[in-house]
């Protein structure tokens, strides 16, 4: 920019056709506002997914044996798991670290049986890590130091016809290939509201899974962070504590279907916002080009006086920047309160999804039926970034056109 007179020229030029400038600002403000709402939706969805994953047993981070994430082989165990667990629990920023081991088998009661994945847990930390078993509809959760007890999900209990104090027979194939059995007493029944999830809950003590499977130790250590926005830093500090033969996984790696869902939603919103902004951009470019064409003679005079092409470009781009700034404020003025309202009131997805009062399940996770788009200070920089990008891009062709002005036109008289 060449200085204040040039700046004044650019600013006053916008006032020359005030209606056109206002319409341009309104167009960009509308497009950017839609973009902000879409972004708040995507960010809200991400937050909701993190929370659902964290409380749904996936955790924020997970230590697992190498190869587990590819094969999901429940027979794998972490070497040195108890040391790793102790180190993780001692780390600042870790809210909960809980071990689990799994074994596939059959649960039988009388003439009924069901194929299950028994989850061996540490009763002292599991309820803090898994929302599904935090409050049971009947009975109690497993107690520390006790063996031979089981907590079932409501659906599974119904399939087996099991009630509290019933004794179930668990059968599995152990590490040697032999059948192993264990008698388990039902001490609690969990009911999340999701049939799918309630069909999967079969919690026993970690030691019982070790007995049934013939494989000692834990197959995973699930970690919840105190601050979900500091996950990367926590992962960096946890990394060196992971024992050899194991790896640290993030919630997105553990729940790939959730990641794909987020990515596809994000891509859809990006595309939709991109199309809206592109249409808006074309409109602004058209308006700016008209403004340049109207001033062709004026630009020719400026070029004749010695104004260089880049200074002419700067004039048009400054006009674009001013339009962009005003558009960003306009977008914040209408979309900000809208996003705020959506954030506070939430959007009830219950009507769209097959869900119960407790929520709807996806990928083995329970999501709240009321979804809260994100609202925060991030709206301001995003509004300016979107609006300025759109208006600067829209200015480029008119600016190039202005820079091509033939100064000889200055001496031609329009008759």
């Amino acid at each position: 920019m060449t200085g204040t007179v040039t700046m004044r020229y650019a600013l006053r030029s916008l006032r020359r056709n005030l209606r056109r400038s206002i319409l341009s600002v309104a167009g960009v403000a509308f497009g950017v506002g839609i973009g902000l709402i879409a972004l708040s939706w995507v960010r809200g969805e991400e937050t909701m997914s993190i929370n659902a994953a964290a409380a749904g047993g996936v955790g924020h981070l997970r230590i697992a044996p190498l190869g587990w994430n590819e094969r999901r082989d429940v027979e794998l165990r972490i070497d040195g798991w108890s040391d790793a667990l102790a180190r993780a629990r001692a780390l600042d920023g870790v809210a909960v670290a809980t071990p689990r081991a799994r074994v596939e088998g059959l649960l039988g009661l009388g003439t009924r049986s069901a194929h299950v994945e028994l989850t061996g847990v540490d009763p002292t930390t599991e309820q803090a890590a898994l929302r599904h078993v935090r409050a049971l509809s009947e009975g109690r959760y497993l107690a520390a130091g006790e063996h031979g007890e089981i907590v079932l999900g409501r659906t599974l209990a119904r399939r087996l016809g099991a009630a509290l104090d019933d004794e179930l027979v668990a059968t599995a194939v152990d590490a040697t290939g032999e059948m192993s059995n264990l008698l388990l007493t039902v001490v609690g029944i969990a009911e999340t509201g999701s049939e799918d999830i309630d069909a999967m809950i079969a919690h026993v003590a970690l030691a019982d899974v070790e007995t049934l499977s013939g494989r000692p130790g834990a197959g995973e250590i699930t970690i919840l962070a105190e601050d979900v926005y500091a996950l990367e830093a926590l992962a960096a500090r946890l990394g060196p504590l992971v024992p050899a033969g194991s790896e640290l996984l993030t919630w997105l790696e553990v729940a790939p279907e959730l990641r794909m869902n987020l990515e596809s939603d994000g891509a859809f919103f990006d595309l939709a916002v991109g199309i809206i902004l592109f249409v808006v951009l074309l409109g602004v470019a058209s308006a700016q080009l008209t403004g340049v064409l109207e001033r062709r003679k004026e630009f020719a005079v400026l070029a004749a006086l010695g104004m260089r092409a880049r200074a002419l470009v700067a004039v048009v781009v400054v006009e674009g920047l001013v339009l962009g700034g005003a558009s960003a404020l306009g977008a914040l003025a209408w979309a900000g309160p809208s996003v705020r309202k959506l954030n506070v009131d939430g959007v009830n997805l219950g009507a769209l999804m097959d869900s119960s009062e407790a929520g709807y399940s996806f990928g083995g996770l329970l999501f709240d039926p009321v979804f809260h788009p994100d609202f925060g200070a991030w709206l301001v920089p995003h509004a300016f970034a979107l609006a300025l990008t759109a208006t600067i891009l829209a200015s480029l062709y008119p600016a190039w056109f202005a820079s091509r002005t033939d100064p000889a036109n200055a001496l031609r008289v329009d008759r």
Partner: protein
Amino acid sequence: MNDARDALVVVEDATKTFTTGRLEVRALRGISLEIHEGDFLALVGPSGSGKTTLLNLVGALDRPTGGVVRVLGRDLSTMKKSARAELRLRELGFVFQAYNLVPVLTAVENVEFVLELQGLGASARRSRALEVLAELGLAELADRRPNELSGGQQQRVAVARAIAARPKLVLADEPTANLDGASAEQLMALMRRLHDEHDVTFVFSTHDPRVVAHATRVVTLVDGKVSSDVEKERDAA
């Protein structure tokens, strides 16, 4: 025409052809001319004779199709667009028939604009612009926009803009064409004063015999060629 004074502009056998579709228009057909320091030169001739095209070349606004045009010793045909812009900015001033002031800027801002493009600081350019406007009797109109000025006042502001950067040569294309008789006389008197007191070289195209009367040299163009080039005594003002 030979002259012992320094030649600011040398035009040698210059031609200029415009092509529109299949149509070729030969606006200049081999013009040779020198413009010297101190000239107060009138370019005259009928419409279509090539006056504006020649001013475009002398003002480094355009390049010749053939021949050579040297402005302040620099050959236009070898100069890039940006170098020609720099030459215009530093060494040349322009006054246009339709005034061509920037409508959204005040009189003083119009004058300042060129000084700003030259890189002058804010206070220096403001004081210089006000000084020039005052010299041209426009001090009280400094804060008015062009639409608040008469035609004659606008053209005087345009002259102020042209001379503010102290150019070596000022080119004026039919500067009085849109002015009434009295305003035209005032403008020519002003240009003469600037020429006489500040040694500004003026080249202007005109159809107006009253304007030609002020010139000390008259070049007549006919059909893209110089038909006469005459030094003359200035008529009494």
